[in-house]
């Protein structure tokens, strides 16, 4: 991951939700997506039902989101 970022060229930005091949065990919807969220505990990479917001999975994301300090290997 980078430690420097250019200013986005688009004037309005949108979060990306990637459709996932899965069925919600809670409501049965097939409208499930993978994306990154910020909540209790920091950043999470989640797979969530878009119909009922049930989390099918939640994996801790990178500590600083997309930003990663530049360091030498091993530091």
């Amino acid at each position, binding site marked *: 991951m980078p*430690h420097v970022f250019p200013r986005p060229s688009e004037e309005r930005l949108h979060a990306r939700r990637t459709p996932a091949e899965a069925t919600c065990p809670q409501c049965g919807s097939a409208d499930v997506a993978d994306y990154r969220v910020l909540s209790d505990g920091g950043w999470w990479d989640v797979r969530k039902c878009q119909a009922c917001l049930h989390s099918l999975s939640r994996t801790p994301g990178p*500590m600083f*989101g997309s930003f990663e300090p530049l360091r030498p290997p091993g530091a």
Partner: protein
Amino acid sequence: MSLRDLSDARFAERYACDRFTATVLANRFRYVVEHMCAQLLTTAFSPILRDFYDFAATVTGAPAANYPTPAVSNSIILFTGTMTDSIRNTIEEYGVQRLQPGDVIVANDPYRTGTHVNDLLFCRPVFADGAVAGFVNLKAHQLDMGGAVPGGFSTTKRTTYENGLVLSPRALYRAREPVRETFSLIFDNVRFAELLLPDMITICANLDLGERLLTETIERYGVAAVHGAIEYVCDASAERIADGLAALPDGEWEGEAVLDADGVDAEERFVVHAKVIKRGDRAEVDLSGTSRQARTSINGTALDAKSTVGTVLKLLFDPRSPFTSGVIRPVDVVLPEGTIVSALPPDGPAFIYWEGTQALLTALLRAFSQVIGAAAFGGDHGSANLHSGFGVHPDGTPWAVVGAAGGEQGPYGATDAGDGEPFAIGTYQANGMSPAIEAIEHDFPVVILRREPIPDTGGAGEHRGGDAIVKDSVWFEPAIHNCISLRFREPSGFGVNGGRDGATGGVWIWEDEADHTRLRPLDAASFAGSTPMTGTLDPRTNAPDPAGEYVWFGRRPVWQTPAGGLLRYLTNGAGGWGDPLARDPERVRVDVRDGFVTVAGAARDYGVVIEGDPERDPEGLVVDGAATERLRRERHGGR
């Protein structure tokens, strides 16, 4: 199963203590942070700590529990939601295994710890049985952290390299011994180091106090009970927010708010867009549609956006209990990175972060106002209107005044419980203390001539929004002013449930050689001769006018007043609640008597006809009942 329904046995099994002990410990955690704050307030050297309360304290749980926060201080809300993440990020990057008793770990990088570089985080690990049992922490504003602008409060810095010294996590003290190279790194790069040093020593002394109090607590109740109580407090917060969400119908609601411009030009305004998606007892807040990061230092980071979401949840669903890290648990924040409230380095310098998060707060309150009914409340003055002034005394001594002479204090919106307060202590989030006028005038070459409400500027409503506040100050030595007001294009004080929006304000200077120690009038003509700094103004009179033209604050690289110059701040008015025509006419009469509404405004905005002279005979005012009834009937279309 709710916490209330847990049997005593299940409660003890889950939290390693009984309910009574958990409650005692919850209060004990608050006792710890409030004692740390009270001592720092009374011992700090910098006015921004001593007089403005620009710091916060927290207790944090163990790393193994992912750093839960059971207690935050009753200080500036802007800090509270970022503290959990900032401590986790700081300690994880530094390394838990490197910690030893008596360490103080510091960091200030906004992309790691939220807020801005001047807010230095101080973490003290608290040990029990040879392991890290938790932390006591203070995050405190430092008067300067280097960078291109003295004090740092500027909308003009274009990169993180101009923004100020960035400190990744490092030890300030190791085993209670100062780390020379860390102090040197800081003091070789900042202004006013001689003031920062005693402040830092004082802050660390307050960490000693917090460590002692938390250690005593652990020794008395046991580490398992303390950890259990921390978990309980956070679980209880999460449950109360979830219960509040569950009481709403499922749905999706959107809101927006605007920041006027950045420091490059007035061509690009910055929109904060929030969509609330609610299902059952959980929700998402999606900030898609928000503007890209600004070109100068008015950005905030994702941690600040998360903090604001937590603040709104607290305000709406759990206003009476303490803020904890559990508040945000029922909600996921979905935010594109690189926006004005989730900026990235180096081209998205984050410093004036609170203006963007205040816009986010407005957007969220607007979204929720569509579904929460009577619990919705009006918007506030919206901008911290933060002023910082600098100069050099005739003897060559530099001076700097921050957060004391601008429009920092302004009105709050109306609620279902009553009118909005005009003399609130800050915005809903930048709620620092209001420094004493006498202290400001004693310490700096300025006299505050007035600080008073302007009639008819609060949003009309069954409950009236607080009036805008005007503050005039005369500067007796040449002064440089950084004025940060980014909410004048649109009313920030939005009305709810039929209430009206508040008025917009502005900032002006008078640079001429006239005697400004005499009070100027407050009518539209009073702005003649001024140089407007910012606002949506009538170009002929310079007075506020919603149909006027936006005046960009960045027209001059530096705003200066000569000796004797005048500075005027006028905040936005706050939003009203409910139909103004439903306001009790007797309450309108009292408003006129008290100077919050004019006789003309009473008729125009409330349909109430007042007879009498509020200036010469305020107690002689009367409501003309028959005329009021006729006027209100006309306003209702003759019904």
